[in-house]
């Protein structure tokens, strides 16, 4: 059952990374937009986040995700799969 659950979750993740439905990996066609976004520190750079928090004396916010990040999602918080 556990193996089945893991397999299902893996399949979901794989299917997500195969196809982002052309949603957000294309640039905007028009100029009428506001691209303000949270300035996240990306996965793999937690030490950078800690150093920034120490230097600037700020609180770290951590968004933990159970699964499902694809390559685009690890490099750009507003695009790809999370």
């Amino acid at each position, binding site marked *: 059952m556990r193996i089945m659950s893991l397999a299902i*979750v893996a399949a979901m993740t794989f299917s997500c990374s195969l196809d982002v439905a052309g949603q957000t990996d294309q640039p905007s066609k028009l100029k009428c937009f506001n691209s303000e976004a949270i300035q996240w520190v990306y996965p793999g750079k937690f030490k950078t986040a800690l150093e920034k928090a120490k230097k600037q004396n700020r609180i770290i916010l951590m968004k933990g995700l159970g699964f499902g990040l694809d390559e685009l999602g690890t490099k750009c918080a507003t695009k790809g799969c999370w």
Partner: protein
Amino acid sequence: MRAGAFADLRVIRLINRRFIPFYFNTGGPGLGHDDDADKFIRDLQTESKRFRNLKVITDPYGRRSNTFAYFAAFSQADGGKILGIANGWNKGEKRVRQITPNKKTVFEFLLKMLRDNPEFDKWTEAEQKILTAAKENPTNAQAVIRAATIREELGQYDQAIKNYRQALQHAKTNKKPIAVQTSVYAALLRIARYKKDWESQQKILAEIKSAPSDLASKMGADLTLEQAYRKLDEKDYRGASKLLTKAIKNFPDSKRMGELQYYAGVASFFLKDKPSAYYHWCWIVENIPDDHLARRAYISAAHEDFPYPNYELGGFKTNRMIGTRNIINAYRRAKTHYEKRVKAEQEKAKSRK
């Protein structure tokens, strides 16, 4: 949360001004793992039960949160300390219990983290310069507006309004460019919306309409959008839809097109006109995917197969067991309505020639 709180401008600006945000995969399949973040959390859980206990909440409907997914605040001092978690914190005497916290909850949670931990809420050098400049040059409208913006982003609305009003007075007295007045009025309308103070909104609108130099016409989409927000809050969806569709036509270059289209979609949703709702949401995804509301538009277009509450759509969620592929297919179905309408518009335009 990407389609919800993280797409909200108020939340974005507060996080960027006062926090260090980080995301990672806590251990499931997929990419985005981070050994250093894992150790940080593991050490916390070893040292203290508090984080472990805080992660699990049961909402008023009896649903339990996913302990692998969370949004929490930490101090990095002394090896790390949990300060709070967004889906279960004490708001006065009530405990906030939302499996996926909405944009208002997140904004209030962030302000609480700063209030409870003022050592992390100090002015930066750049902010101090701006505040000092405004104090030393109270008749310099631009300097005062810069200070007001900082206050607004930190949720200090009373002080922000005071500063904005001061800037407005001097802009009028010293005959500054009209853009100064329009930016201040846009800010005042924004704050009235955040506070749901529709009485103040009414007064501000009256000021704008009676101002010389036809100020109202220079405000672009701002004026219409803020009035539409009120109509949505009062559930006058027909009124909101009328305002928004007119503004979409009249202000094609507006940087707020994402908001115009998204909330036109929301109004259509509540008017049970799903084809129009899908059109507006897919318009954002297909034409301005870099807009801050693109993800929200995508998820709203796929709402029939999305398992978490969509707070913009009255908490709508499916009760079926679904996965990512269902969401992608739901968006595809919604997109057929968008494509149908685009085709119809193109044919209409052709037949006119």
